[in-house]
């Protein structure tokens, strides 16, 4: 029985969105981009004083990784998660505990943190993905609250005061951001590459089918439950890693910082702005969002108006450009090749 006036027609998967191999030009573009990013910090020795930019870049890499990861469950599978900060927090704290109590370097433990986050994602997914639609979103919100309250009350990890972590001491100020920069770059590359591979796989196709019409997908033989849970778990992997490194970078961990819903809001906005369900979308969205955010912060300061701006931009995008930048460009046939990775 149709629930709405208009029957929920499945949008045909447009054949122009062919899963094509990247062209030579695209590969060259990537190679050049990579070279630039890798060599950029070296300018520090030439010009100096680039710490602000190194910071902005590694911050951007981190969000690129997180948005691309979020996209796997929120974009490809169509299940909006407002609880991704949990992965971030778990990653951060896992690394933090191992550093503070056992003296193990975060650079070693971060991948492990990612795996732990992924495991949690799989476990939680087993429960909360038994439902469809809004109930899932609700469960992610509840998850954040649950974790926040637990962390707030858990003395071993510092409760509401959190933990401080020893900074990297024996490195000159000039070089101190370098390891973080490269690590985040690697995480970003990993996340985007994973997103790309999933998009071009049977798994990815199945997720897209689920996002369009889950019942029909199930009837068509796609193991929807398994795919959904897997997607949710995988979406936590790089977020957890990023969390581990970020906590170390900040040198402190606090439930308040990691577990605010505003972070989830930002992830949603970035991905929707750039283009939900595309490979390049989250990347574009992350870059754009951080640029706009910096602009607002330098001009308006850290006021609540930032939150208003986030909400406003999200609302405008949802109403007028629901497919995001990459999606809208593609729909109009004007997508430049360097953004076309689907």
């Amino acid at each position, binding site marked *: *029985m149709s629930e709405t*006036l*208009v*029957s929920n*027609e499945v949008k045909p998967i447009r054949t122009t969105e062919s899963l094509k191999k990247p062209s030579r030009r695209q590969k060259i573009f990537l190679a050049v981009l990579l070279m630039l990013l890798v060599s950029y910090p070296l300018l520090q020795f030439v010009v100096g004083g680039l710490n602000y930019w190194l910071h902005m870049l590694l911050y951007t890499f981190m969000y690129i990784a997180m948005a691309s990861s979020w996209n796997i469950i929120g974009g490809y599978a169509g299940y909006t998660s407002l609880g991704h900060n949990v992965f971030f927090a778990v990653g951060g704290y896992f690394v933090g505990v191992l550093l503070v109590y056992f003296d193990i370097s975060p650079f070693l433990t971060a991948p492990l943190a990612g795996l732990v986050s992924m495991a949690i994602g799989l476990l939680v997914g087993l429960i909360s993905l038994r439902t469809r639609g809004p109930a899932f979103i609700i469960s992610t919100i509840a998850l954040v609250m649950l974790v926040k309250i637990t962390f707030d009350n858990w003395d071993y990890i510092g409760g509401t005061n959190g933990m401080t972590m020893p900074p990297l001491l024996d490195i000159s100020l000039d070089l101190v951001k370098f390891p973080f920069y490269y690590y985040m770059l690697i995480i970003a590359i990993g996340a985007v590459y994973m997103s790309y591979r999933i998009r071009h796989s049977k798994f990815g196709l199945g997720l897209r089918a689920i996002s369009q019409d889950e019942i029909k997908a199930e009837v068509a033989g796609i193991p929807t439950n398994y795919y959904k849970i897997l997607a949710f778990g995988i979406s936590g992997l790089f977020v957890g890693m990023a969390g581990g490194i970020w906590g170390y970078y900040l040198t402190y961990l606090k439930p308040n910082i990691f577990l605010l819903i505003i972070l989830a809001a930002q992830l949603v906005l970035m991905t929707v702005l750039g283009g939900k369900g595309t490979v390049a979308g989250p990347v574009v969205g992350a870059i754009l969002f951080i640029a706009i955010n910096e602009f607002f912060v330098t001009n308006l300061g850290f006021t609540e108006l930032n939150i208003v701006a986030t909400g406003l931009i999200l609302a405008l995008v949802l109403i007028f450009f629901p497919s995001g930048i990459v999606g809208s460009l593609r729909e109009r046939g004007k997508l430049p090749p360097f953004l076309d990775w689907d």
Partner: protein
Amino acid sequence: MVLLEVDNIRAGYGDGPDILKGLSMEIEQGKTYCIIGPNGAGKSTLLRAICGLLHPREGNVTYKGEILNKLRTDEILRRGISFVPQDRCLFPDMTVKENLRMGGYILRDRKELEDRIEEVLVMFPFLEERGSQQAKTLSGGQQQMLAIGRALVLRPEVIMLDEPSLGLAPKIAQYIFDVIAQLKDAGMTIILVEQNARKGLECADWGCVLDLGINRFEGPANTILNDPRIQELYLGRQKQDRQEKTA
């Protein structure tokens, strides 16, 4: 007299393709029409386009000289066209009486509404018995009766039924067709979409075969029923008493 005229309409859902691709039909007062055809042909779409759940993209639906295209469902209801959708479409948690009351939703006069409900209860006495039962507790056939009764509360001139016998056991489906025959005798104009094409055509005056979004064949119901081409294409060969070979 021609009551309702569908003139070369194109219609579809959302951004989707046209389902009706230039369909024309004329409905005369007091006659019963049965529309048959394969799935996806547009039978339900046609009914929805007439009653306002869907707006035609091209062409006109005209009722007593007035173009209905842009009107809302309640406005079309007021003009005398009622629709009973597939799957009964009842309010499951409301009682039988409340469902009937919803049938008269657009009537503002309390007294008139009560009177009309009485009329319907006279016609379907078993609904009176179950007045306070929730609609979801009724059997399939009873639910269909309720759905038809609900459509009758407004004393429509034209009643459209989308596959009323769907999912009902043959005996009960027959009862539904008897009711339709009753309405016919009372002078109502009836448009019937039926998968059970034979039964549907048997109680109709006129038959239309819809396929691929247009009105492919139409004619007196009897003719359609006995036409071998149509039998083969749309009705399936008759297996009545295991004796009939198709003519």
